[in-house]
């Protein structure tokens, strides 16, 4: 089983993006950071007790599924859209949605465009290797307008072309657009169009066939979401772990019940997650949130209680 392999190895092999602002990138010391990376760290903390016992495997759109299918990685946390065919035909198991995204458009303000429907004849930069080009083709086809697609491998190059005016529009997931815009010299000169042309639930995934492992990844993620909902943060987790009068908190942190044992882990698995990476909100704020240059609002990714879609099943 995967868990045993991971434990035997002492390291978690986690597939991440080769470089996407805010989601995954190595810093000057070679330490990976980002929103997707945090999930890897959470799982590592839960299973191995060490959030840095991870082997990061940078993957392109092309290589990610093979890497997972072949067992080269234990889990893939690389802004991957959950679709029917990937889940069913490619034989993977998406364990949740850590980021609700949708494909959007960014244009320079000076262009004076206010709707994607006005883009007839425009040159559109697309980041390839994902579902974007399919959505785009469908969108323009359905609306019967013409366009010129410019496929580009990486966000950095797309950004370069867009800024130089080699394309009028840049389309990718809205989060990516916002993140990219944030690093412009003059972010205010660019607008995101209101149309979101697709649903892009991005989430971590594992191979079919090892449900125990899928459960671990799924509940590691849910623990982070629930922790935010329940107000557990990396700052107060120690204190809460000594016992609260909220039984769910107690169950998550292992002071009550034996959830950890059911997962094949120890009782403190979730406590370690919160301690080392923080709850969902903390991770978001640290990597994508408004305090960062990227400055994304929570939007759909707010807790259900705040009008978002984040909704963790109960720990019970």
């Amino acid at each position, binding site marked *: 089983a995967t868990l045993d392999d991971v434990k035997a190895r002492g390291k978690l092999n986690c597939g991440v993006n080769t470089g996407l602002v805010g989601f995954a990138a190595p810093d000057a010391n070679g330490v990976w950071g980002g929103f997707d990376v945090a999930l890897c760290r959470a799982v590592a903390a839960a299973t191995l007790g060490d959030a840095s016992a991870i082997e990061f495997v940078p993957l392109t*759109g*092309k290589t990610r*599924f*093979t890497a997972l*299918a072949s067992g080269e990685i234990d889990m893939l946390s690389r802004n991957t859209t959950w679709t029917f*065919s990937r889940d069913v*035909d*490619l*034989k993977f198991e998406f364990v949740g949605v850590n980021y609700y995204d949708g494909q959007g458009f960014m244009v320079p303000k*000076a*262009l004076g465009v206010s709707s994607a429907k006005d*883009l*007839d*004849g*425009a*040159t559109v930069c697309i980041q*390839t*290797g994902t579902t974007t*080009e*399919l959505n*785009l*083709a*469908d969108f*323009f*086809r359905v609306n019967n307008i013409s*366009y*010129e*697609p*410019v*496929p*580009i*491998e990486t966000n950095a*190059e797309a950004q*370069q*072309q867009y800024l*130089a*005016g*080699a*394309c*009028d529009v840049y389309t990718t997931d809205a989060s990516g657009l916002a993140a990219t815009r944030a690093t412009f010299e003059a972010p205010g000169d660019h607008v995101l169009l209101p149309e979101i042309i697709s649903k892009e639930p991005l989430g971590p995934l594992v191979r079919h066939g090892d449900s125990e492992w899928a459960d671990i990844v799924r509940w590691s993620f849910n623990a982070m979401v629930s922790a935010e909902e329940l107000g557990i943060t990396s700052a107060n987790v120690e204190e809460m772990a000594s016992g609260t009068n909220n039984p769910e908190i107690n169950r998550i942190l292992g002071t009550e019940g034996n959830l950890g044992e059911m997962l094949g882990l120890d009782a403190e698995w979730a406590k370690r997650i919160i301690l080392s990476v923080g709850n969902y909100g903390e991770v978001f704020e640290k990597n994508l949130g408004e305090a960062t240059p990227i400055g994304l609002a929570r939007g759909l990714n707010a807790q259900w209680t705040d009008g978002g879609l984040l909704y963790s099943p109960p720990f019970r």
Partner: protein
Amino acid sequence: MTTLSDAPKESFRLSMLIYDSRYRSLTIQFVALLGFMLVVAWLVSNTLQNLEALGKPIDFGFFSEPASYDINQRLIDYNSRDSHLRASFVGLLNTLLVAVMGCALATVMGVVIGVMRLSKNWMLSRIMTVYVELFRNVPVLLWIVFFMAILIETLPPPNAFRGETPSASMWLWDSMAVTNRGIYMPEPLFSRGLGDVSFFGAFNISLELIALVVALIAGFWASGRIKARADRIQEATGDRPTTWYLRLAVVVLPFAVILILLGFHLGYPALKGFNFQGGIHMRNSLIALWLALSFYTAAFIAENVRAGILAVSGGQTEAAEALGLRPNRIMSLVVLPQALRVIIPPLISQYLNLTKNSSLAIAVGYMDITGTLGGITMNQTGRELECVLLLMLVYLIISLSISLVMNWYNKRVKLVER
């Protein structure tokens, strides 16, 4: 005398398989073949087993399904509802397009640079040396992204042509726009067009084009006749009539007449909406890839050309000079015929390299066969095995055809020599 009057009758012994030179080679070959087949069988059985486990038996059915993605650069009609097969074919044509364009430019550049490197002008030959060393010693992939970045960063966007006081203007009397999205050139249009013919219902070729090509071929044929006549006159009288204007005329005139008959006019690109519309659009991805491959390969070709010319020893030129031949004649009658034999074989292998290197098109988003079949199609369908194997097959066929040409040429040259 210890003559063996009667050699012992040889009967087959097992050890002869190893110690008899006749059987030994059979044994070795048999072992090699067996080993090879075992390895292949092992690989195939692994593959089948793995595919079984994944539930993805080999199946090319996906080729007939709609590709659902768009391709900007296409030589035949294509839209996102067409099949993956057609998308791959579009990619293949794009590969061939950039390969042919690249080989042509690389040859021209390579020859010019190679000759300039041999120039007596120190400055010129030094600059060419720098060029050659610079391009040969940096990976081609870097050159491709470099050229793309140069195009994007230094050329004006279409926007710059807009407004009261545009910061950029079109070239050649407003007929050509050079932008960082590519170059928009006037396109040939025909007011009395002849329509298209369809081949196998798969793609169309316009009759105008066919007519023009036929006219050109006829023109060149006639020009060849004129040259042959000039050769004969020279043989007979020693004087060679000046024929270049006649030869030019028979090529140009029929072509021009057909153009006029068809109502030829140029369609100029004009800034409409977001982009220039009309005209021929050469995309920046194509230009960057084309230039990078050509510049890179030209550095190698230049070296071949230089070596070829140097290989024709100084003595040959001196002997020709001593006979009173003029420099241009020395080049065409003595040096080139000899140098070409040295130059062409490595030239063709450079063509091969260029074609293979064109597979790096994905780095700039040029949709060649690696970008379609080996890129988006593979990605969307998850049929890695089928796609990659097919991709390799396509390149193999291209390479082998080029090698065939090379072998044919080598054989021909050999025949002439002795």
